[in-house]
């Protein structure tokens, strides 16, 4: 006997989730660990590194937030948020037990399968480390499938370093190279000072057999792409996570239209050669 099929969930209707944990990860930056009720979680699709969810602060609004947790633990929905606007400020103010709306996961993530067998250079700027963290977890847990793995992370000052304790634990690994730089620091900082693209010429990777994953403010990404190209990387080996004004998240409303593509549906991760010309257009 055929069982009646459950009606497909409307992608525009949020599920109600609860904040399980809230942790401060930097100035105005908080990581929310949220969970769904068992009934709500049943048909939740697993996420891929680089995808995002739409989170609702009830009564205020909805914003796209990248998943920053481990995709191998799909029940744990982790989002790292900087409180800058009305919605994100409300989200970072939520406490354990508070309700939050959730739609997703959406979008195209990082090319983890294309990177197999190659050197992987991960370049993150500021909060851009959050959408890259699931990719890093994947690289670390499946380390043997990749060549050299390098993380270059740049941020504003030592106080702004995201996931600081975790970066310190990653640095203890002998099979990854991790360099952190800040734009300015006081004398008690003994690490690099300077912009993150400057670290690229010192990184160890074979430009013919590498994939670069880049996420950060767009200006930082433009300088990073130039440095990666100078280091010999092809345009088809560089992937970026783009940030645009995503609303519906399913390619209908057009708010995030970026030339011929929708960032929510066709991105947020794009191969550089496919968006190179669009990046140069100020109107977009």
């Amino acid at each position: 006997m055929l069982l009646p099929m459950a009606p497909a969930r409307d992608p525009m209707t949020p599920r109600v989730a609860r904040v399980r944990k809230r942790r401060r990860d930097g100035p105005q930056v908080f990581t929310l660990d949220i969970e769904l009720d068992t009934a709500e979680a049943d048909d939740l699709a697993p996420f891929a590194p680089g995808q995002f969810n739409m989170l609702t602060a009830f009564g205020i609004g909805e914003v796209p937030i990248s998943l920053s947790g481990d995709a191998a633990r799909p029940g744990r929905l982790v989002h790292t948020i900087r409180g800058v606007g009305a919605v994100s400020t409300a989200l970072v103010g939520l406490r354990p037990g508070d309700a939050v709306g959730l739609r997703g996961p959406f979008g195209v993530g990082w090319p983890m399968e294309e990177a197999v067998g190659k050197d992987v250079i991960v370049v993150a700027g500021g909060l851009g480390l959050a959408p890259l963290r699931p990719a890093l977890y994947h690289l670390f847990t499946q380390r043997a499938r990749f060549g050299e793995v390098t993380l270059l992370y740049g941020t504003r000052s030592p106080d702004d370093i995201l996931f600081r304790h975790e970066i310190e634990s990653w640095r203890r690994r002998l099979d990854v190279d991790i360099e952190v730089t800040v734009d300015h620091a006081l004398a008690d900082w003994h690490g690099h000072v300077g912009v993150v693209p400057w670290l690229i010429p010192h990184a160890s990777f074979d430009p013919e057999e590498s994939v670069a994953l880049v996420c950060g403010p767009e200006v930082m990404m433009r300088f990073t792409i130039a440095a990666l190209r100078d280091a010999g990387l092809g345009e088809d080996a560089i992937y970026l996570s783009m940030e645009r004004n995503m609303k519906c998240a399913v390619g209908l409303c057009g708010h995030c239209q970026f030339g011929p593509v929708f960032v929510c549906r066709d991105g947020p991760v794009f191969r550089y050669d496919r968006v190179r010309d669009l990046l140069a257009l100020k109107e977009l």
Partner: protein
Amino acid sequence: MEGLERILMQHRFFAGLEAGYCELVCGCAKNVRFEAGQYLFHEGDPADQIYLLRHGRVALEMAAPGRNAVTFQTLGEGEIVGISWLIPPYHWSYDARALERIRAISLDAACLRNKCEADHDFGYDMMKRFVPVLVERLHATRMQILDVYGTPA
């Protein structure tokens, strides 16, 4: 001197330098060492040396009254400390502090300037090596001024 020539030719900054030019540079060069915490130079001092770092890291700092010194750049092996020697009035505009023990080649700036003036082909070769460093630092400064990681307006 042979040892110094070899070190110079192996330094990233002088990659591919003609042998004759290497001899000219070596005539202005010596090995130097700084201990951690020691200053290579201070803001306002005459920019009379250029340092090619061989080992260790240097912090470039600026101090303001009532504030601790702010490091705006660190430089390491294979990099150059000091661009002010190129442009009059040849004074440093920041402090340079050794973060760890430094081994470097120091080039006498006046000696190098005179050789550039006397042999413009040599001078042009030097300019082609130093100008990209200037441009690279200008780009980095732009990115820092833009404060790209700051809270969006």
